[in-house]
């Protein structure tokens, strides 16, 4: 293989150092302000209890799920063209999930208490309980799957079973995560039985953005450093898939927006008209972070260019992060039963501490990823026999 992973070289050390410094600095800042002020260091309040740390966790958890879903394309459904990214996918899914959980841990009031109160009380009515269960299972399957691939078991029976198990865990985890919001009838902006589908779509979109970005980063943003199958993937199936997923995301946002704006219920339509569409940040993130990338991915010539793909990945990072933020906060901005005490639609802007958690999560992701690239072979691919054994060949063999 002519692949050259720059993360294994000095660039990797540099990025690792920078990430680690940012990680330590942001973690240090967050801990210091939490220790001195408690959660008063957050701008989340009793009226908007879930702020940017929750949105960050949601963003990371769903990006992880998206990566998990992408990884199951080859491992479960036999889309072998995706083999060149599958190990990176799984590792990134793991790293992002860990980063998200770290952010959540600092958001909770009593994180260590979870360790005994959740298992001891088994509140199976709570979607939050299932979130813990499913994401834990998801995490374990990711590790197991990665261990299988790392051991070279690309096509064994166990490997396939683990793949299927992992796929199911991802579906359950992210689908259930959607229902944490979607089942809240007292928060009509969220109430939506189809919310899991929206979460799957946007999860894959953010997963693809992460995959594209980190794959290019690993190769110094140059396709010349990539293996041929990886290049083929980036010039073929992957951008098409990315474009399609972005289209689906856009469709979902449009449908939710139209339903919301059409509704008479002020707790839905005011969120759209007075909060989301009234916010320049939301407008920018929608048009630049989702619409523009979709347009860029529409034509084949644009879609296949490395520069476009990197740009789209970065734009989608921002677009979907904002989407998560406005989704989480949007469900809470109409004051519930506050009379004149809350004079208008609630406003929420993250505090420095809340930003430090988002930065910390991102820095942890970079740190883990660089370590992964350096210590593990994330570009590994199955033996050529497995690679070339396409569905057609498989069908022929069975015939």
């Amino acid at each position, binding site marked *: 293989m002519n692949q050259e992973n720059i993360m294994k070289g000095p660039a990797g050390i540099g990025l690792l150092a920078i990430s680690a410094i940012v990680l330590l600095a942001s973690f240090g800042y967050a*801990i210091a302000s*939490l*220790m*001195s002020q*408690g959660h008063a260091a957050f701008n989340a309040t009793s009226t908007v209890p879930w702020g940017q740390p929750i949105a960050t966790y949601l963003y990371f958890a769903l990006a992880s799920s998206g990566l998990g879903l992408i990884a199951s394309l080859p491992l479960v459904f036999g889309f072998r063209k995706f083999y060149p990214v599958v190990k990176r996918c799984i590792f990134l899914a793991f790293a992002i999930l860990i980063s998200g959980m770290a952010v959540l*841990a*600092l958001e*909770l*009031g*009593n*994180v*260590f*208490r979870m360790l005994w109160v959740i298992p001891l009380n088994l509140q199976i009515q709570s979607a939050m309980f299932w979130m813990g269960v499913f994401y834990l299972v998801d995490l374990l399957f990711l590790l197991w799957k990665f261990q299988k691939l790392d051991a070279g078991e690309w096509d064994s029976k166990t490997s396939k079973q683990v793949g299927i198990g992992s796929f199911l865990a991802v579906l359950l985890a992210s689908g259930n995560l959607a229902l944490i919001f979607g089942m809240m009838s007292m928060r009509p902006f969220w109430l939506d039985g189809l919310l899991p589908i929206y979460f799957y779509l946007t999860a894959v979109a953010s997963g693809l953005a992460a995959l594209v970005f980190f794959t290019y980063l690993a190769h110094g943003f140059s396709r010349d450093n990539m293996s041929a199958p990886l290049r083929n993937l980036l010039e073929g199936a992957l951008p098409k898939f990315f474009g399609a997923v972005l289209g689906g995301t856009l469709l979902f946002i449009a449908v939710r927006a139209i339903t919301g704006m059409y509704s008479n219920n002020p707790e839905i339509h005011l969120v759209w008209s007075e909060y989301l569409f009234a916010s320049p940040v939301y407008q920018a993130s929608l048009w630049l972070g989702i619409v523009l990338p979709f347009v860029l991915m529409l034509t084949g010539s644009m879609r296949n260019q490395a520069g476009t793909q990197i740009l789209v990945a970065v734009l989608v990072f921002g677009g979907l992060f904002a989407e998560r933020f406005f989704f989480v906060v949007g469900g809470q901005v109409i004051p519930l039963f506050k*009379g*004149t*005490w*809350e*004079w208008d639609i609630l406003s929420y802007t993250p505090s420095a501490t809340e930003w430090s958690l988002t930065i910390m999560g991102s820095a942890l992701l970079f740190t883990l990823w660089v370590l992964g690239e350096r210590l593990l072979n994330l570009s590994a691919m199955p033996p050529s026999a497995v690679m070339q054994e396409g569905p057609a060949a498989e069908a022929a063999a069975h015939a």
Partner: protein
Amino acid sequence: MKILQTLMTRRRFLKGSAAAGATGAAAGGLGELTGLAPVSEAQAQSPRGETTITKNICAQCPARCGIDVYTTNGRVHAIYGDTGNPIANGKLCPKGHLGTYFLYDPDRFKGPMKRTNPRKGRNEDPGFVPISWDEALDTIAGRLNRLREAGESHRFALFYGRGWGASDAGLQGDFGKLYGSPNVAIGHASMCAEGSKRAKQATDGNNSYNAYDYRNVNYILNFGASFLEAFRPYNYLMQMWGHMRSKSPQTRITTVDVRMNPTMAASDRALYIKPATDGAMALAIAHVILTEGLWEREFVGDFVDPEMRFRTGQTIPAGSFAEKWVHGLTEWWNEELKDRTPEWAESLTSISARDIVKTAREFGTTRPAIAIMERGPTAHTNGTYAGMAIHALNALVGSLWAEGGMFYQMGPSYGGLPVNAADYMDDWAKSGAWKSQPRIDKAGTAEWPMSGTMMQEAGPNHLKGDPYKMDTAMFFYTNPIWSAPNPQVWEEALKDVFVIDTSPFPGETAMYADIVVPDHTYLERLQDSPTYPFEGWPMAALRVPAVAPLYDTKSYGDTLIEIGKRINGPMGEYYKALDNVENVLRHRAKGFEADPGDNGVNSFESWKEKGVWYKKRYLWQQRRGEFYEWDGRGYNVRMSPDEVKAKLIKTPTGKFEFKSGFLEKHADYIERTLGVPAARAGLVQWVEARHTGQGDLYFVSPKTPLHAEGRGGNIPHAIANQQPIVGGRKTVYLEIHPDTARARGIRNGDKVRIKSNLGSIEAYCRYMPAHRPDTLVLPMEHGHWAQGRWAKGRLPGHSGDITENVSDPISGLACYYTGKVTVERA
């Protein structure tokens, strides 16, 4: 990151554990990390000391609600209404519960102090240093002795606001007599609600607020008395509101006010009136009552010829109406009322004639009905006349001294003091030159002949040196450097006065103090308090200390007695004999031995135990136009007109006067100050108000239910619930009609500047479409610059700063609500 916090908390806890242990804070969970191990066992158990309940009276407004103070392990932790107190009946208003803040206020003065910085001003740190009580009292007494020896004892003034009873403000009169100063003591009534008192003095001869029989009233016509916000006794009024609104028949209530407020909102009819025109509304109602024949004939009288009627615009012949308990009805009708039609009133008040007629018919046909008012209608230059017009309605429907009507308060059966001040007067006290000195506020002089007190004038007069300069001024429960209209003048005036403040709390006046002799807070005091006008029958409550004083403070009464002991001559002897407040109260309580209260209180000890002495028997009643006195079993003894005049209707004629003898005595003064022709001065009539401020919008600064007198701006929970109408939680918003705001380019939530001819203050505004577009509403609370850590620097500015010092010439009441302002974006 609970664990890290826990570590922090624990470290902090261990550091402060000695203090915490000493104060008896609940133990439990000591060495445990709550983040790591369940602490349910530890936290579920708390050492529970014995809880004691002591009797006290709330001190946050004049209502004097009896309270039960709950103390456990030496800490006061709860205050509830005293079930045995007839005002509280176990209930409280929102302020009452916050009383513990007064006790544990971190900004309290911790003991006597003297000033070290001779310069005085808003930005001057007084440089207070602690001194001993002896030094403080000796300094004050030394000063007073020197002044007296120099023949200038009139230059000592004692100002007081909320006096409670015999053990504080009740001691001041004798102090002034013995020491020899016309300025001991000057009360704050002219900055409070003197207008309604004067209106009643002018019409029924009682210079007093009324007592009311809300339990039996069927109709209330409420002119600007903030019944459900600040009218006293607020707590009891709410109890009665619940009763009136669910009794059979339900009491109907029409409220006339200048702004939307809870009383307006909860009434059956809310009528928005243009500020300072209540008198016109009342006159029009009187007009309708007379033209439609709805007056109470048994009280008022009737035409000699039963076929006669009052007809709009037409006079009636003299002698055609036989008056019973009223005086001057014919002149009133002929010279004033015949033209005061609802249409005329509509043009002044902006209330439609239709609503005026409806209200008048309801009021005139429902018995018993009362018309009530307070400083809303009377804090204008025409306030006394407006109050008289309103009170005249009570006479027309015969509700004076009637069941379901209104009357006046009786005093308690107190015993005498152990010594008589008259026996301790030296020559100076008896006939010193001070006797010919006017008061510093000129109340009772040619300048304010009809006012009993004019505290708002004292500062400006001192500044002018007219009639003279004060040397020493002492303050009890009053803070004129903040609360007087145009207090900037006081800020300047008190710079060269030796100021003694007795407040337990920092305040603007205290920042000017040369000596601070802090009082106890009310939960630490032994203090009596006869009731404010309530239901008429006598009552006297007692404050019993719930805990020993937390700091080195002294009750004001004792401070006064201790100063008195140090005055040379017989005065000192008098105070040595008086000894202390407890001794005073023990002697007062001796009166109960002969006249035990309904609750069995017949001694000082039982008074302390029950917290209140009362006799639920008012002695007089007017029934179907006759007055009766209580004979022990019922209102059976019919009273002669002379007895009525002596005991009840204390006017020159012994009748309710639509043509006031009291005003006619001062007719020339009234003509000079108000432009009312001297010949007409006695009539209940319409007089145009003179508005101050030179702006285009009316400006009112109401008192909200959470305004704790003198302290509300520094009580966190009060601040946080201050202004629910527009969500004033950290600040108090200027409430402005959106049309008014838009016309001036002001957006909802903008910071605005409110300007009068005196200057400007800033506030954040909120749109309130339920208010009059010509009226701005800014609840009075904030703008303090020295009240404590929470009050400081909190917008809005102080409404007093843009309120001109103009008073009703008759009552002397400062016209707080008459200023007109402009508003613009800041």
